[in-house]
């Protein structure tokens, strides 16, 4: 499979959850696996174009596919993605357990809907549980990032 653009060969049994392979075998510890049951969203990654719960993906089904984890969001020099920067600027992160998953779900939303309404953001985060923040700062940050990206596009066009 291709992980964050690089071909990787893994040795785990095919029914091992992808989340475990990413963390234990490939040492990509950004992906969390808090519940292991598809409820909390902390393990969200992209498999091809779909943001999915990697704790429910048997690694065998990801064979030959492209996997993108939270580590792919910042550029290789370490600059945060606009969404990550907005989270930081809005002081949205507390313990951080839910964050890699939040970022991937929001990335999925912004890829399909670049100018979401508040309720679109709520709906996109239905499967991402945060025990610390009460969500609203995260939603504010996502909307800020979307608006900034929209403004940048308009500027380019003018």
């Amino acid at each position, binding site marked *: 499979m291709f992980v964050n653009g690089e071909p990787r060969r893994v040795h785990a049994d095919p029914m091992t959850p992808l989340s475990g392979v990413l963390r234990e075998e490939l040492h990509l510890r950004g992906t969390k696996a808090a519940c292991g*049951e598809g409820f909390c*969203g902390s393990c969200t990654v992209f498999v091809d174009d779909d943001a999915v*719960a990697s704790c429910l993906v048997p690694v065998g*089904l990801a064979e030959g596919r492209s996997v993108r984890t939270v580590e792919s969001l910042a550029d290789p020099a370490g600059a945060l993605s606009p969404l990550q920067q907005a989270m930081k600027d809005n002081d949205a992160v507390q313990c951080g357990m839910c964050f890699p998953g939040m970022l991937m779900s929001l990335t999925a939303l912004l890829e399909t809907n670049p100018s979401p309404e508040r309720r679109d953001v709520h709906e996109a985060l239905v*499967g991402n549980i945060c025990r610390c923040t009460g969500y609203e700062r995260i939603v504010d940050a996502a909307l800020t990032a979307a608006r900034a990206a929209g403004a940048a596009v308009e500027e380019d066009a003018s």
Partner: protein
Amino acid sequence: MTVPTAPSLYQPTSLDDAVERLAVAGPDAAPIAGATWIMRSPSRGEPFHREYVSLARIEELRRIDDDGATLTIGAAVTHARLAQALAGHPALEALRQAAATSANPSVRRQATVGGNLCARDFAAADLAPALLSLSARVVLAGPAGITTTPLSGFLAGRDNLPPGTVLAHVSVPLAPVVSAHARLTLRRAGDYPVAIVSVAATLDDAGVVESATVAVGSVEPVARLWPELAAAMTGRPLDADEAVRTARELAGAFTPRTSVEADGWYRLQVLPTVVGRAVRALESHGRDRT
């Protein structure tokens, strides 16, 4: 001491190959589609099968075809794709709602139609009542060939299918109905619904119900039709309050299940309210139509 071997995964690209492999392996093997149910087997205390045969790479199971009279949905189509595809089919609103509101967004991008209908002991499947209300049939591929059967019979008998049986497609007649899906969850998003009601009806020009189909999920162990309520709704205008009263009178027809999420008596108690929500949604779809 015997060390259990890790389950293996076979990934065919044709339906024939999948059926043959499953038939040869017998009860040691099972199909796997989105894996969202199977991957949680350990937490339900169920051992994995020795082999899984993946349906994910079989192109014909990933298609949705519309020939004007029937919508044919491949078993490996995900909830998210189905919801998207149904945006252009207002008559199938019950199914769109079911596909768009079950579970959470990432599970919907993974979980399939076939998995929803084939997961044994899963009473709270959303697509099952939605498809029942729309009079869907299932196309099964097995060692003896292809058979087509009404979904209601399939659901009632799905535990006794011969090894090698794969649900290949679901076919939904494109009839001029209005339909709606209502579900009640407790506590938080992502919980399984306590009761699910899907209703489809044909209305005459005056808004009188010519025929109705009502299906109920999550109340009994397997989703089923509620013909008595459908009969009571027929021949009169849609009326949510009246439907709630009738549902209350007729709810004794169900033998409700008790689980960790809710007791049986509670499911019966809320069922008429969920009926009311579904019929109210139908009233508004009916108004939109005129």
